[in-house]
């Protein structure tokens, strides 16, 4: 070992002003840092606005297509079993996409730009950063779901009233569907955050998230094999179906029970995040 100076000057008194004694990382501090991060980027607002827009517009479209359904005598009966809240939640799976993109960007934006090094220099324990991001994402998703549901409720009211389908706010079925929508969107967002923390690349993460969330259930549903159908029922979108109806669909057999749906979706949210939390420490930033 080579030492550069023999006698380091003893001037430690100059380096620690007492005023800053309380200065160290805490979880509330890290959470606040993540809030500032996410709210100071335009991409966040774009993702949130497009989520709300997409959910509302698709809800409006499905409300407007109700007239086509009633014109068709074969389908006309279905409308009687329909719950207005299901129409309002009709755009939810498109919202799942934009919210998944937001979830991915929360972390890949840092890796792509190198900001992750400032982040981990400030919080060397790393895991609390992921926890704070997850919490921020849950709050944002809840907020945008609330806004989207309110907008959807308002814009579809005219159409739904023609069929006496305007969901009653004192009807537990209404809240069940909206709660299911919120739960599923949060699961999709956290799934995407976990995958993105593992993959570190926006393109790769968004591809994986879109494939698992939308593409696979769509394409695999053409395969009429029992075991494939079983797999499909465990994918996030089909798994969320039981949570997005007032109960009638459960009898069709394809869907998971409400309880199973809750567990499956929670697993999608938690498993990638837990894996990410473990690897976050071991890998170079």
């Amino acid at each position: 070992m080579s030492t550069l100076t023999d006698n380091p000057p003893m001037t430690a008194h100059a380096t620690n002003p007492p005023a800053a004694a309380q200065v160290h990382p805490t979880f509330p501090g890290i959470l606040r840092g993540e809030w500032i991060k996410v709210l100071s980027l335009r991409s966040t607002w774009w993702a949130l606005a497009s989520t709300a827009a997409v959910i509302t517009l698709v809800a409006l479209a499905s409300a407007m297509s109700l007239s086509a359904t009633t014109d068709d005598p074969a389908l006309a009966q279905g409308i009687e079993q329909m719950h207005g809240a299901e129409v309002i939640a009709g755009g939810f799976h498109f919202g799942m996409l934009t919210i998944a993109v937001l979830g991915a960007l929360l972390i890949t934006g840092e890796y792509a730009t190198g900001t992750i090094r400032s982040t981990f220099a400030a919080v060397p324990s790393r895991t609390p950063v992921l926890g704070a991001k997850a919490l921020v994402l849950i709050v944002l998703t809840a907020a945008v779901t609330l806004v989207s549901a309110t907008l959807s409720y308002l814009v579809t009211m005219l159409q739904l009233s023609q069929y006496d389908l305007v969901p009653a706010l004192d009807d537990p079925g209404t809240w069940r569907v909206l709660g299911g929508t919120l739960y599923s969107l949060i699961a999709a967002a956290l799934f995407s955050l976990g995958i993105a923390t593992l993959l570190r690349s926006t393109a790769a993460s968004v591809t994986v998230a879109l494939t698992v969330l939308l593409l696979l259930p769509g394409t695999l549903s053409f395969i009429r094999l029992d075991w494939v159908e079983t797999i499909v029922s465990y994918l996030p979108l089909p798994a969320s179906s039981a949570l997005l109806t007032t109960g009638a669909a459960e009898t069709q057999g394809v869907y998971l029970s409400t309880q199973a749906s809750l567990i499956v979706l929670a697993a999608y949210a938690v498993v990638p995040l837990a894996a990410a939390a473990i690897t976050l420490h071991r890998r170079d930033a």
Partner: protein
Amino acid sequence: MIEAHELTKRYGDKTAVHTLSFTIAPGTVTGFLGPNGAGKSTTMRLIMGLDRPTSGTVLVNGKPYGQHRSPLREVGALLDAKAVHPGRSARSHLRTMAATHHIKASRVSEVIEMTGLAGAATKRVGGFSLGMSQRLGIAAALLGDPRTLILDEPVNGLDPEGVQWVRQLVRDLAAEGRTVFLSSHLMSEMSQTADQLLVIGRGHIIATGSVQQVIDSVASGAVRVRSPRADELAAALTADGVTITSPDASMLEVSGTTAEHVGQVAFRNGLPLYELSPRGASSKRRTCS
């Protein structure tokens, strides 16, 4: 204070830094000199706990970086001036870091003032020149009023006035008793900024000492040694932080030290010498071990 002991980092089969051992003392400006790709940035990332060493240890202010209760109070680092989200303003970037440590907004304003960014603080970083990004990086490094500063190529892209400012800043910080460790690939820059030098090439430490000592040792050229036990001699000399090349099994070319020193090391280790010849000798020679 930064203490590295046998620090090694491999990425795949590439060894970025190889058994680095050094101590950076507080109260001085220590320059980290070496060509691009020599391992300077890797070493700095290892110090900051961002990359994990393959083997060896490195302590900052007595502990591994990650074990400090208040990391930003201990070490401020500028590792890559461009590593800031381009969509965020300079102030927002600093606020995100400050928030984690409950550093007051007034301190954020203070470092913005200090680094001359007041006029650009609310603009998005994407539009910053490299010089402005360097100022932001330095502001981030100063945020926690740290005892140790690590700055990777801080004068790159700065205008002459900015270069002067950085030189004065690091001298002032060192004079306050802080440890200042900054890298450059330019000897001319280092000779005007640093008191002490750590010279690195291909992941090995080539020379250490005061700026004058390093200049002298480079001027003194290499020492040629022949010994039947050249391997052992090489190992004994490596421990003292010099560069050794071995043209054949019994011959060594040793640079960064003197013939006297090589002779003493050989004697201490009981190694026979058949030849010991200084090459390109200059009159002013000093050991730097």
